[in-house]
């Protein structure tokens, strides 16, 4: 197990494996996203309270989920990178950040478009909305902190510490609707055996959550490969790989 882990964490091995998997993951995730979108827009019935407007759930929930899941991954890999000094872990964290930031923005924007007709307002300084906005700022802070260092290993250490510290915001986002009185409703999928959303509305949602996770995985592999090349372009294996066949990847 440990051996296998070390082998995976070795950059040339990771680079090769990721190159094999990422296109497959990308295409299958796009197909699943298409099916889920069709299910959400066409097959799922309208809601008894919100009518057709509730369909925003099919883009709002997957992007909100990605925004926090990606941050959790970023914090864990940063922690691993800081403690065990594994460069690949830092490369994963650095690559996840822009993807996470983009989905956090989508979560906020689609939430606003949902809030306007249903609640009566685009924005309200409500605990859930505010903590999600803070998450976006933490992503921006992480990326600009990294960009301010010339030296990659310094960027890894400073950014890693910020990512690890920022993890306190995650439970605040999650429990904000339970701890404080909030405009945002509680979670609809607390446990899978008794969700507060009926089955014909649920499956496209679950499919889209799974598909967008796969989509994120494909993007992450693409970006980590690029990050590995940036960090290792002086090492033998990169020169062997690219010296022989220029432009190939």
């Amino acid at each position, binding site marked *: 197990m440990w051996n296998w882990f070390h082998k995976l964490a070795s950059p040339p091995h990771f680079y090769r494996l990721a190159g094999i998997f990422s296109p497959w993951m990308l295409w299958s995730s796009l197909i699943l996203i298409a099916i889920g*979108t069709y299910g959400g827009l066409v097959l799922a019935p309208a809601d008894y309270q919100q009518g057709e407007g509730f369909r925003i759930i099919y883009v709002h929930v997957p992007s909100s989920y990605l925004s926090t899941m990606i941050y959790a991954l970023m914090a864990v890999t940063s922690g691993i990178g800081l403690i065990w000094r594994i460069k690949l872990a830092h490369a994963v964290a650095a690559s996840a950040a822009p993807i996470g930031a*983009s989905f956090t923005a989508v979560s906020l924007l*689609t939430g606003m478009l949902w809030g306007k007709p249903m609640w009566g307002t685009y924005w309200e300084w409500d605990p859930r909305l505010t903590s999600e906005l803070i998450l976006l700022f933490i992503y921006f802070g992480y990326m600009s902190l990294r960009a301010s260092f010339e030296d990659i290993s310094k960027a890894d250490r400073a950014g890693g510490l910020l990512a690890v510290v920022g993890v306190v915001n995650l439970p605040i986002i999650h429990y904000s609707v339970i701890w404080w009185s909030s405009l945002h409703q509680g979670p609809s999928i607390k446990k899978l055996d008794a969700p507060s959303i009926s089955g014909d509305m649920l499956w496209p949602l679950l499919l889209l959550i799974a598909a967008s996770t796969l989509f994120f995985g494909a*993007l992450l592999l693409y970006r980590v490969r690029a990050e590995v090349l940036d960090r290792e372009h002086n090492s033998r294996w990169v020169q062997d*790989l690219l010296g022989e066949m220029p432009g190939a*990847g």
Partner: protein
Amino acid sequence: MAEFFAMGGYAQFVWGAFGIWFVCVIFNIVAARRKFRISVERATMAAARHHHRTTRKMKQQNDT
């Protein structure tokens, strides 16, 4: 069909939200590929430089 696009009067909100999501998906693919392409170019350049250096060194060694 027109009824489907009207989304029960919520057209601008529903299509707006799906549009934002779709743009984000496409943007992420383009951005990731772009980043990869730039990194490959940069690493290829570095490898070529290195290759050039080592061959020159070898040539010098052969000459002497």
